[in-house]
Structures are given as structure tokens and as C-alpha cells.
């Protein structure tokens, strides 16, 4: 058994690609060994910016000889078939063997594949792995790149170390020949390092200032960064992404603490964190009170001769320039009020067919105000949701959705409070996008909203308005915080509705995986805002209100369907079955999502009970019989007999269940034959259950409606057990079918059970 070491050296591999590269190297190597019939145990894979290393332990010296057999055509088959078989298996005709198979002489090809030296297998595998390596981005280089056929790699490939036991695995790819040497740290070591055995690899590199194991470098950065912060009396703000990135940028990581001028702390902390993290890959620290401190930790790649003094000084200089830039933006932006910035939105196109961002803001402001004036968003909105009300943060240091203390005047639902809410909502909406034209957001687009909130507070606007500006993009996709304070809810909902409805109206709908305007995210945001805040409104009314004037209004139903689809996705994540959604949507035409979701939840709970499952079975049986008999229902029967029942002419949908119950009652009285016990029981149970269920649905007591349906379970079971529907007497048959139709209608009143699977 022999160990194998492979090291592929190249110019600096982007940090973000190293993890994927390790996985790809393992996968490709396993595939190569697999096809050679070599069984592998665990692989060790390491990466640094300048190398990918693989260690495979206990490989055999030789692959095993294998004998492969293939069954061919029978003796006497046409020559063509036999020759084809020979070609396919790479044997000549006289090498074929004849054997008896089920009494027939049949040709067999037997190939004896001798074992191969594993070293040779590896020598072929290495170039194949390199050529097949799936880098997310790759390039050509050097003189060979005069041909487009030249090797592509993430950066120029510079060396291969391939050691099998103590022997070189001889191979070559793109002019790079394998060897027994590696290189140490770029600056701490010069010259080749010869590796005699895999066991020396890690230690020899370490001696040359390379920690080849990425996990070890990560642990080192974690530990030393934390120690550096502690030594300065601070706490490291942990950031695993930065740990991995810095480990991917260094072979000999040395975390060092530096400082910046305290005066920069007047800039919002998110800005400081963003610029240090994104631009400089520095960690930040908090002071004892948990606030951002004027310190950072950079990760150098050398043990500097001066202990890092020059490096820290250099990094401090760079950060000072970055922060000076940030403060420049912060100062310049605050010279103007948000309302003045907002004027610049006239110059920014939102979408060619939907006007400028200023146009959008205007629409959103109107729509948001409408939401308040219609009582959809009220001063109490969100109050029902569990929330922690924190004191208004004077400095506005928080970036989360913690609501500020609601203005006391907003408590109560009097006209004054509504008017004030409407005014605040409109103001917040008008200013919501103003930060897009500020310098800061121009430099750091990810700060949109957040900066608007800061600037609003800085110019003395109410906290509720500043919070709404800050949070109106929320929720950004599933799982993000959903706003719960009225001003924010109104602006966030209006913004998303305007986007969704507008793009549907101009036929820019998501298709397949393409959703360039993030309409799915907008739809999920709309649903979350409605459901979490229990906003009682028909989605149809919302769509109508959000419709862009002068644009096609036909998109309404389509948008509603799109929202239903999103609702299914959202409900699925809450473990709600899509067929439950369908069953309720089929009978809920009002578009009130809150109602719908309550009903869906009650239905799923009910179907999960024994009563529910059995009732569903009874329903399916009834529906099948009705379908098979092509039963047209009461009206058809009436028209067939020419009789007119005045009750059947009442078409008020609210009265329908009552009417049906009345008709059932009369039906029972009119039956000319003696109904069987179970038949009578069902008729009675229906006349009880149907109005009860209907009343419960109207009162949004969906559990109550389900309970009413549950009372039908025993009667329907008994009915099917003892009553023959398809009785020879026409009257009995007709009456019983009619009864089943009533049962079906009663169930439909709660949910369309035909859409429930199972």
C-alpha cells in the first residue's frame, strides 16, 4: 500500500473559489480512480491561495486484473451481427468462446484486462483532472494562448508535485511537467523544497512559512484576531465569512490590530463596517459597551521584520482614506434635505414603460395613503403581532426593524390619528427612494433605505417616518423580518404592489427561472405583509388600486393567480399542502388572504383527523357516483320535470345554504317512499350541519365549520354501508342521488374537497 500526494500550484486562486475547488478536486480524483477500479478511503484536500493539495492514503501498487465477459449472439447468427459484437468488445472472431445458454450454443467474448501500475494510472489521471477542472471563471495565458485551444485554468498553472510513495508520477500538461519539488512562502522562502514522502509535506511547508491546511489557517485567524481585540480591551465582531476569505488570501496569516480616528465614528456604523469588510476585508471590534470601536483587525500574510509596524501604519492610512470618503459622502448628502434629493429621481428611469423613479414614488405615495384612508392599514396595525417596543433610539444606531415608540397621538382610531398616519405615510413614501441619488448609496448600493433613514432622522423627521424609509424594502425575500409598524407597513406594501402590478401590466412577467424584476420576491413580500399584520383586504381591491392608469387593466386575474402561486410556495414552507390551498381558493373568491390562510390551516388540520380523512373518503365516493350517473343536480331535475321551485330562483349567494337546507327539509317531507334509516339520518344530519357550517364560515370560525362537517362523517359512512343508491325504482334513485349532491354541496361550502389529493 502506497500514499499519493498531488499538489497543483498556480498564481493566486481567488479566495471565494477555493472551497469549491477542493470539492471539485476530490470529485474528479475519485471519478478517475473509480474508473480504474481503485478503491479509495478518505482523501485529504487542502488549499492555499497558491496551491491545491490532495493526499490519498493506502493505494495499491497495481490495479487488479479483471476478466470481463460479454454475452453475444447465438451460433449461426448472421455474420454481420457476430462481427459487430466482436468490434464492440475489441476481440477477434477466433477469440470468441462458445457456451451453452438454455440449450443454445452462444458466443461469448472474454476479455482479460491485466492489472496496471497505479503510478501509470495516476500519470494519466492528473492531466485529465486538470483539463476537466470546472473553475467558475477560467483564462488562457502565455505564448500557448496564441491558440484558442490552449489550456484554461483559474490563473496560470505553474507547477505540479506528484509523489507516489517516494517516486515521481511523471506527467505533463500544457508545458508544465510534474516534479518532486514545491515552493514555500512567496516572500519568506526562496528556492525549491524537495518532498521525499507525503508525510513530510505539511511540516516541510510549515518550515517554509506555509500553513497548507486551510482549516488550520482559519482557526489561527479566529484565535489571533480575537486575542488581538482582547489585548486592546475590545471584543472582536465575529465574521466567519471574513475568516474564510482571509484564510484564502494568506499562507501565513498574521492578524494585526490597527486604529482609526475616533472622529470617524460619527459616520453610521453600518457604513464603517461595510467599507472595512467589503473593501478592506478587516474585522471590526466593539468596545465594552457594545458599540463600534475605532479599531480594526487586518490579516497580513507575512511575519514582518518590524513586527508589523509598517503594515499596521499602511492599513491605517488606507482605512483613513476610505473613511474620509465615507464622511465626505455623509457630509455632502446631509447638506441637502431628502425632499431635495428626491427631485433627482426625475432623472432616473425606473423602467422605460413605467416612467421615472419619481413617477413611481408618486404612485406609491398615493397608494400608501389610500391604504390608510381605506382603513386597510390603521394606527393599530401590527399591534396584534408580538413585538418588542423599544424606546426610540435617539442616535438611530439600529439597522433592524425594531419599531420606534409609536407616537402617543397615534394610539386610538379617531379621525385625527388616521389623518396623521395618512400624512406620515405619504411623506415617508415620497422620501422613500430619495437616498438612491445620494453619494453614499451611489458608492454603497447595499445601504439603500438604511441611509435614507439616517438622513431623515438627521433632518428631524419623525422616527416613524425615518423607520419607514429605512425598512420599506423589507421583507427582502422569505425569512427576512416583516415590518409591523403602520407607517412602514403601508409604504412597504404600496411599493411592492406598485412594482408587481406595474410589471404585469406591461407584460414583464417572470418566466421559468427568469425574474429580472424580482416580482416573486415582491409577491412574497406583499403576502407576508398582509398575513403577518392581518390586513383585512381583498387582493383584488389592492390590485385595482395599484393599477397604473393608462395601462392594460386585464392583468388583474393573472396577478391574483400569481399571488396564489406564491401563497402556495409560502404555505408549503409552513408545511401546508398545495391541494389544501387549491381546495380553499376554489371556494374563496373574495381575495382576502388572511381569511384564506385561516381557512386553509383549519382544513389541513381537519383532514389530518380520522373524521376528516373518512369524510374525504365519503365525499370522493359520493362525487364519483354523481359523476358516473352524470347527475345534473336539482336545477336540471327541476327543468326536466318542468316544475319550478320558487326557492331555487333565489340567487343571493349568502342565502344559498339556507335555501338548500330548506329544500332538503321539504325534500324529506315530499319523499313518497319510506326512507331507510341511514338515508333518513343523513337527510337530518345534513339539514343540521349545512346551516351550521355556513354560519361558521361566514363568522370565520373555520374550526367550527370543520366540526359541523365532522358530524356528517358517521351518517355518510352508514348511508354507503346500508343504502343502495342505484335502486331500481326511479324515484328512490333520483332522490338518493339528489341527497348525495346536497352532501357534496354542503362540503363544498367549506372547501372544494375534489381538489384534495388522497
Amino acid at each position, binding site marked *: 500500500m502506497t500514499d499519493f500526494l498531488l499538489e497543483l500550484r498556480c498564481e493566486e486562486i481567488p479566495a471565494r473559489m477555493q472551497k469549491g475547488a477542493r470539492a471539485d478536486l476530490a470529485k474528479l480524483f475519485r471519478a478517475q480512480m473509480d474508473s480504474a477500479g481503485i478503491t479509495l478511503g478518505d482523501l485529504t484536500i487542502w488549499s492555499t491561495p497558491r496551491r491545491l493539495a490532495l493526499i490519498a492514503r493506502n493505494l495499491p501498487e497495481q490495479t487488479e486484473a479483471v476478466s470481463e465477459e460479454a454475452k453475444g449472439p447465438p451460433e449461426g447468427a448472421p455474420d454481420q451481427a457476430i462481427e459487430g459484437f466482436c468490434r464492440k468488445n475489441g476481440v477477434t472472431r477466433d477469440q470468441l468462446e462458445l457456451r451453452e445458454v438454455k440449450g443454445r450454443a452462444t458466443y461469448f467474448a472474454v476479455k482479460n484486462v491485466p492489472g496496471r501500475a497505479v503510478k501509470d494510472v495516476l500519470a494519466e489521471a492528473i492531466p485529465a483532472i486538470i483539463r476537466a477542472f470546472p473553475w467558475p471563471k477560467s483564462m488562457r495565458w502565455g505564448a500557448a494562448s496564441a491558440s484558442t485551444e490552449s489550456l484554461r485554468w483559474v490563473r496560470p498553472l505553474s507547477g505540479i508535485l506528484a509523489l507516489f510513495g517516494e517516486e515521481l508520477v511523471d506527467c505533463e500538461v500544457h508545458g508544465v511537467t510534474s516534479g518532486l519539488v514545491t515552493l514555500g512562502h512567496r516572500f519568506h522562502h526562496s528556492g525549491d523544497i524537495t518532498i521525499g514522502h507525503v508525510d513530510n509535506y505539511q511540516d516541510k511547508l510549515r518550515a517554509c512559512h506555509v500553513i497548507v491546511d486551510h482549516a488550520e489557517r482559519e482557526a489561527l485567524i479566529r484565535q489571533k484576531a480575537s486575542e488581538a481585540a482582547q489585548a486592546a480591551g475590545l471584543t472582536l465582531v465575529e465574521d466567519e465569512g471574513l475568516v474564510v476569505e482571509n484564510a484564502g488570501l494568506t499562507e501565513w496569516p498574521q492578524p494585526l490590530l490597527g486604529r482609526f480616528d475616533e472622529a470617524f465614528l460619527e459616520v453610521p456604523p453600518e457604513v464603517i463596517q461595510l467599507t472595512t469588510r467589503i473593501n478592506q476585508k478587516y474585522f471590526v471590534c466593539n468596545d465594552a459597551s457594545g458599540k463600534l470601536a475605532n479599531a480594526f483587525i487586518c490579516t497580513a500574510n507575512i511575519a514582518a521584520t518590524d513586527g508589523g509596524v509598517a*503594515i499596521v501604519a*499602511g492599513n491605517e492610512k488606507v482605512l483613513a482614506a476610505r473613511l474620509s470618503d465615507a464622511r465626505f459622502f455623509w457630509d455632502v448628502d446631509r447638506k441637502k434635505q431628502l425632499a431635495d434629493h428626491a427631485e433627482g429621481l426625475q432623472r432616473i428611469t425606473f423602467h422605460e414603460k413605467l416612467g421615472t423613479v419619481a413617477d413611481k414614488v408618486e404612485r406609491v405615495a398615493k397608494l400608501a395613503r389610500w391604504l390608510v384612508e381605506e382603513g386597510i392599514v390603521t394606527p393599530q396595525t401590527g399591534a396584534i403581532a408580538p413585538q418588542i417596543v423599544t424606546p426610540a433610539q435617539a442616535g438611530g444606531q439600529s439597522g433592524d426593524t425594531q419599531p420606534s415608540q409609536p407616537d402617543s397621538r397615534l394610539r386610538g382610531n379617531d379621525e385625527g390619528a388616521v389623518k396623521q398616519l395618512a400624512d406620515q405615510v405619504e411623506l415617508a413614501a415620497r422620501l422613500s427612494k430619495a437616498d438612491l441619488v445620494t453619494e453614499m448609496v451611489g458608492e454603497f448600493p447595499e445601504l439603500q433605505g438604511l441611509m435614507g433613514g439616517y438622513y431623515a432622522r438627521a433632518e428631524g423627521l419623525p422616527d416613524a417616518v425615518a423607520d419607514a424609509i429605512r425598512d420599506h424594502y423589507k421583507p427582502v425575500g422569505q425569512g427576512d423580518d416583516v415590518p409591523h409598524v403602520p407607517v412602514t407597513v403601508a409604504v412597504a406594501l404600496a411599493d411592492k404592489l406598485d412594482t408587481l402590478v406595474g410589471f404585469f401590466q406591461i407584460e414583464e412577467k417572470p418566466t421559468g427561472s427568469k425574474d429580472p424584476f424580482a416580482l416573486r420576491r415582491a409577491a412574497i413580500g406583499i403576502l407576508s405583509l398582509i398575513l403577518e399584520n392581518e390586513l383585512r383586504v381583498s387582493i383584488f381591491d389592492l390590485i385595482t388600486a395599484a393599477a397604473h392608469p393608462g395601462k392594460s387593466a386585464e392583468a388583474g386575474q393573472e396577478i391574483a393567480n400569481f399571488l396564489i402561486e406564491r401563497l402556495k410556495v409560502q404555505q408549503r414552507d409552513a408545511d401546508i399542502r398545495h391541494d389544501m390551498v387549491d381546495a380553499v381558493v376554489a371556494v374563496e373568491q373574495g381575495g382576502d388572504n388572511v381569511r384564506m390562510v385561516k381557512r386553509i390551516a383549519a382544513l389541513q388540520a381537519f383532514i389530518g383527523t380520522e373524521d376528516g380523512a373518512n369524510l374525504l373518503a365519503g365525499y370522493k365516493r359520493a362525487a364519483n357516483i354523481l359523476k358516473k350517473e352524470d347527475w345534473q343536480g336539482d336545477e336540471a331535475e327541476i327543468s326536466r320535470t318542468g316544475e319550478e321551485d320558487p326557492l331555487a330562483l333565489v340567487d343571493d349567494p349568502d342565502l344559498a345554504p339556507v335555501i338548500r337546507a330548506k329544500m332538503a327539509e321539504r325534500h324529506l317531507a315530499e319523499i313518497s317512499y319510506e326512507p331507510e334509516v341511514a338515508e333518513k339520518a343523513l337527510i337530518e344530519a345534513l339539514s343540521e350541519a349545512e346551516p351550521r357550517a355556513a354560519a361558521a364560515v361566514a363568522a370565520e370560525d373555520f374550526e367550527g365549520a370543520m366540526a359541523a362537517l365532522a358530524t356528517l362523517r358517521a351518517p355518510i359512512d352508514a348511508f354507503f354501508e346500508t343504502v343502495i343508491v342505484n335502486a331500481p325504482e326511479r324515484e328512490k334513485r333520483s332522490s338518493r342521488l339528489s341527497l348525495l349532491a346536497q352532501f357534496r354541496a354542503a362540503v363544498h361550502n367549506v372547501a372544494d374537497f375534489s381538489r384534495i389529493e388522497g
Partner: protein
Amino acid sequence: MILALHDYWSAQGCLILQPYDMRVGAGTFHTATTLRALGPEPWNAAFVQPCRRPTDGRYGENPNRLQHYYQYQVILKPSPPNLQELYLKSLEVIGIDPLKHDIRFVEDDWESPTLGAWGLGWEVWCDGMEVTQFTYFQQMGGYDCKPVAGELTYGLERLAMYIQNKDSVYDLAFNTPNENGPAFTYGDVFLENEKQMSKWNFEVADTDALFDLFNKAEAECRNALNAGVPIAAYEQAIEASHIFNLLQARGVISVQERASYMGRVRDLARGACVAHVEKETPRWTEEYPEWQA
């Protein structure tokens, strides 16, 4: 510093050229880079290029952000196998000790949609500051680079700040004073320019006139293309590109228009590159029979 770099790269076989005498946003716009990156002929050159980036102006208030600064550019085609080592040695030549300063190659892929060009490489960090852009050109003017050229772009002011250990670009010593002349700082030479040019770029420049100039450059580029003089056409494309940058600084180009203007500049630049390749192809294919565009 410039002299040290000239000496060093000249010894590596580079022609030492002078700046292109037009307002450009980067050394890459120099014909010695753009047009020479096309085609099969080997090409090694080094030069200083003053650059104008109107939106980077900070009225002289930022210690290292300027609307006018100098790049030192090296282009080596085909890229030599030891390009990184050559580059690192050049840093030592200008006085950066790699065991005292933290030099790092951080992923930074380069793309210039206006030139129809992209490449992979790094920004080279010295103690966290980007001092050089290091790129292996993959495409130029929409053509695959065959062979690939390596491009090094040093930020001269930033490097000087390291070497002279200054916190602000304006404090850099511009000369070594002697009995014949007093000391000058970078600020003495350029601070007033930065203040005035920032104001002009952001607040003063006559936008109607700029729009007009843009259209004229565009028309002249087409005129030159029609006349079969692609280098002249390329100059007009550069001109249009700079005027577009000025319009951006004046904030009069909306997001949607921006794409459209960039498209127009790209069409000009690519048109010039295409015309250049077409014009040179007979000669290239004669000298390099293997080569194909």
C-alpha cells in the same frame, strides 16, 4: 521612481513610450495597450499615462482620491511565465521591502464594456492599499487575445505615498530641493488644479456644449472609419468616452440613458478595433500563418 521603473522594464525588453496626448480614464486606452493587444505580434512596452476620472474628484479634500493622476503601465505580450516575479522585483526596485510590507494578490477581474474587453487578474495590495492592477487580457474589442497580454497598471501617487511614508498625496515631495531650487510638494503642483477641476467637472461644465461635443466626436469617428483610418477613429472614440465621463460627473445622464451612451461609446471603440484588425489581418496572417482573428 518613474526613472527606476523605466530602467527596470527597459532591461526586461520593454520599449519606453510617452503618454498618449489625450484625456483618458486609464492607461489601457493608450493605443500601445488597446490596439497592440490585438493580433499575434509580440509587444512589450512601458509608459506613464496621466488619467482623468471626473467623478473621482474630491475638491482636494481626500488624501488619495483625485480626478487627475498618473498611472505607470506595462504591457507584455505574450504574458511571460514569470510575470508575477518580474512585477514583484519591480516593487523592490522602487524601494518596497516585501518582508516589511504586506503584498497580496486579491482577485479583481477587469472589464471594460466600452472597449469590449475583459481579463482576469488581481488588484495588488500593499498593506491593504491597491497599488497595481494586474490583468491577463482575454478579450479586446470583442476579439479573443491570441496570444494573451499581461498588463500591469501601477498607481504612481499611491506607491509614492508608501515610499515617502506620507498620509496624504498632497504632502508628497515632488522634488529633491537643492541650492538651485526650493522644495515642491504634490500639493504645490496639483492641489489648486484638483479644487478647480472638481468644481468644473461637477458644477460648471456646460452640459449642452458637452452633449454637442459628444455627438461631434461620434460623427467624426464614423467619418474616420469610413475613410479607413481606424487609429484616428479610435482617438475620437476615446474623446467621446471622456466627454461621457464628464456628463456623468455633471449628473445629467439618467440610468437608462447611461446604458444607451455607453452603448454608443462601445460601438465607436469596437468599430475602431474591428477596423484595425481588418486592416492589419493580411499582414498578420502573412507573418503568422497559424494566426486567426
